[in-house]
């Protein structure tokens, strides 16, 4: 091998390297805001903290959040005597505390488990029996409402049933979440419920097969066949809601509906665009809601004309104190445009829009990012929508569209009949008509 070749190889290698060095150098010179630098600068803080740890001559006004959080956490990890410091849990608590200081009940932190649960509910299906539970004044867990077409309702579970045992184990003393956990389980498995149904004294045993329950968002029927009064109940505002609403109204139109009761009771709200879609079906034109951004800018969300595909018979809207958020947008728009009469009790009063953002580790935060006003510019936050006709909530649990015990529904029917130019009837007659 000649000496010349011995030189050429390394020189070529060297030239290639130099090219690479130049290539990388441009990269380094072009990059700024490298997160590594951010982290490095934060890491320096604990030692700065030591400087701060003497009592300052003159207290400075502000204490920066991130730096203080990090230096205190770092110090705890190295010095805290009394057990290992779980930085993840502590960080979650720090975020919770930070958000709590804003004094806004809707701005909150969701740990990975709660966030997962939330997503499942938004997607509209989970494995279970499909019944809403609640606790009565005697601390007993009872079926508030079996969901339409759910395994629970098909197995014969009724609203108001008190749960005594789950899989033959007494549940007295458990809180509602623990009961829900016991009832939920793998798809296809059986759960045995022991239920107490008034007025009977002996409990009923019911076996239910758990399956994927889809939250049906709309349920409807012709409530009064003689007077052609239609009844639509909306349970929430998710992606399926508007399509189901369209179907329900189409079917009632086909049956020659002459008056409509839209039931928004117990409806906690949901997605904002869906509120616009559904609101558009009951309002002629103009905004359904006005979003007020944090910079004060007002952004009206107008009626979508493509939703005007049904007749508009006289309308009564049922609301109660659990009608919240999107329900209040729809009822507020109907009230401001005088396209319907609101019957029931004052609504919840939540006129704030939240944005949910996922964080890197599977947790999330829900932050209130905007306010909204009704079309006439009313801020109903904490005030709620006041119904046009007051009617108190029924004392006992009611089943879907049952005027026998649902006193509010009876009131709504009477108001609607007034609007339709019909004489109002007694509850007994009304229920006779609907059965």
């Amino acid at each position, binding site marked *: 091998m000649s000496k010349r070749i011995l030189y050429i190889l390394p020189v070529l290698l060297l030239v290639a390297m130099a090219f*690479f060095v130049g290539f990388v150098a441009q990269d380094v010179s072009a990059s700024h805001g490298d997160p*590594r630098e951010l*982290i490095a600068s934060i890491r320096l803080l604990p030692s700065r903290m030591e400087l701060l740890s003497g009592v300052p001559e003159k207290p400075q006004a502000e204490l920066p959040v*991130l730096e203080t*959080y990090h230096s205190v956490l770092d110090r705890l990890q190295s010095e805290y005597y009394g057990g290992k410091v779980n930085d993840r849990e*502590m960080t979650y608590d720090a975020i919770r505390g*930070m*958000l709590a200081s804003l004094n806004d009940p809707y701005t909150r932190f969701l740990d990975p488990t709660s966030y997962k649960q939330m997503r499942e509910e938004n997607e509209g299906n989970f494995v279970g029996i499909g019944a809403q539970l609640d606790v009565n004044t005697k601390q007993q867990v009872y079926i508030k409402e079996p969901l339409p077409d759910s395994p629970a309702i098909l197995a014969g579970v009724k609203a108001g049933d008190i749960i005594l045992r789950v899989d033959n184990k007494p549940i007295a003393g458990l809180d509602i979440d623990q009961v829900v956990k016991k009832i939920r389980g793998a798809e296809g498995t059986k759960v045995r419920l022991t239920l107490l149904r008034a007025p009977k004294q002996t409990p009923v045993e019911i076996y239910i097969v758990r399956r994927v329950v889809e939250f049906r968002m709309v349920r409807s029927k012709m409530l009064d066949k003689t007077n052609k009064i239609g009844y639509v109940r909306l349970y929430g505002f998710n992606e399926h809601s508007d399509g189901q609403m369209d179907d329900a109204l189409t079917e009632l139109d086909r049956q020659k509906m002459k008056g409509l009761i839209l039931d928004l009771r117990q409806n906690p709200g949901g997605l904002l665009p869906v509120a616009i879609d559904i609101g558009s079906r009951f309002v002629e034109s103009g905004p359904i809601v006005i979003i007020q951004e944090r910079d004060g800018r007002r952004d009206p969300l107008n009626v979508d004309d493509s939703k005007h595909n049904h007749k508009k018979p006289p309308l009564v809207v049922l609301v109660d104190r659990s009608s919240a958020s999107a329900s209040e947008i729809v009822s507020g728009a109907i009230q401001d445009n005088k396209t319907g009469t609101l019957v029931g009790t004052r609504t919840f009063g939540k006129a704030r829009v939240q944005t949910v953002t996922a964080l890197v580790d599977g947790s999330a935060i829900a*932050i209130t990012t*905007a306010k909204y006003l009704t079309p006439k510019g009313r801020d109903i936050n904490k005030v709620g929508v006041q119904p046009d006709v007051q009617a108190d909530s029924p004392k006992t649990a009611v089943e879907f569209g049952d005027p026998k015990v649902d006193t509010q529904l009876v009131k709504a029917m009477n108001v609607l009949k007034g609007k339709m130019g019909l004489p109002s009837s007694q509850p007994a007659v009304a229920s006779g008509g609907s059965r």
Partner: protein
Amino acid sequence: MWYNAIEAKARGGFRLIFMCPGFPDAVEIIASGIRASVRVRQASPKEWFKLRIKEQLVITVLVVAAMVAGFAARSHVNARDPEARVLREDTRQLSAYASNTSSDAGGRSDVDLRPLEVFYSALQHVREDYVEPIQKNQEHELTYGALRAMLDSLRDPQTRFLEPKEAAIVEAAGHGKFNGIGAALWVSRAKVSGANEEQVVVETTLPGSPARKAGLLTGDVITTVDGKNVLPYNPFARVENMIKATKNGQLTQDKLQKMLESENERIKNGIGFQKAIDQMTTAGDKEIALTVSRPGVKAPVKIKVQPALTTVDPVSFAKINPTVGYIRVNLLIDPTKTGVADAVAEFRKDGVKSIVLDLRDCPGGSFDVAQTVAGSLMSDRRMSILQMAHGKQRSLKANVSEDVKTPWTGPVAVIVNKGTAGTAEVLAAAVRDGVNAQLVGSTTFGDNLQQTYVALQDGSAVTMTTGKYLTPKGGDYQNKGLVPNVVIAAPTTDAPAANDPVVAKAVQSLAGNKG
């Protein structure tokens, strides 16, 4: 720039040596990138001059040209594809945060950076998106909320965040000034109705304080403040236990129902223990009504206290007889150092032979003061063994201050009682173990945890448990207290030392020790 001699060993054992201008680190990194085993060292002049001038020039020009070309090429790539840069920065972000699993980002690879990032992004969202823009002068509220919740989650009553007004209470105590009822309060844990609950306990009442005048005693558990029930971190623990008991069949449903109702009432009309402490230690002129549960007394004791500022004189001293000097330490704060030094100097001058150190109802104070007092009173310098986090230990020494120069060498007796707490107990144990001092009186409070106080820049502070003081011999007396060698009831007293039977007993023990 250096001239580097690069020795590259290729796979077949073929060895190359060549010259390169540049920084050794950069060359090494690049070389390792092309997977050759490379050693970089600075070239010796001899090696360099082996090459002919022409070759040297050619190599240098080639290298410089290639670097410029590389730089330009990359610039070109970046300019043509604006997304490339964004993408690259994103990737970099990912790799930086994933550094907890690999060591590629360098630094402390054992640290999980995700909590920091989660917190950071939560904060950014609040700042950028929250409906009410966060004003610059509001940011501390976010900080306070975060720190309070974070520290409370440790469920350690001595580890907490102090707002400026709470921090001011601690700092005033450092100057011997106590507002409110004038008592040192401690939070302990006890089983109540099957639940482990935090309780506010009177550690000591300070001399001349409203609390002492009103008859509050060491060991009293404060159960209500102005009619409000003092609640632990988890006020529902009792309820949880009741429900458990019902499930096990130890409690009937009806009974549970009644108990739940009364619990609900109790919690509704309650106040968190930290709020309760703040209420008792903040300046105010409204009379405070307390209910205390007193050890050995069945019925709850009702006490009314008129709050006032109590200024504690930290040290006083006198001769009891021509050969015995008496030093009373009420608080271990800065002036205590010179006070004790003055006492020792004067006793020496007067030919005193032995000293009685009275630490009754001394709730402690700062550790460095205890170190200096110990350094004045004993010749042995072992003060304490400090147990710290992560299994670390450190032995702490007594300090001999310049005021004393040489420590006291004569016999010492120390009077203690239930109100002797914290660093005062550390001091008593050190003198006992170091120079065989007699401990006279009753068992001490039993608090030997180290608290570190971190003042933050806006006047707020964090206090946290950072260790445990063991005796020089390694003894741990947490919750048990130090047991005196000479046991005698040693109640709180404002009586002059000369007429005090406890002091007389201590003097007697000194004589016994000598004999």
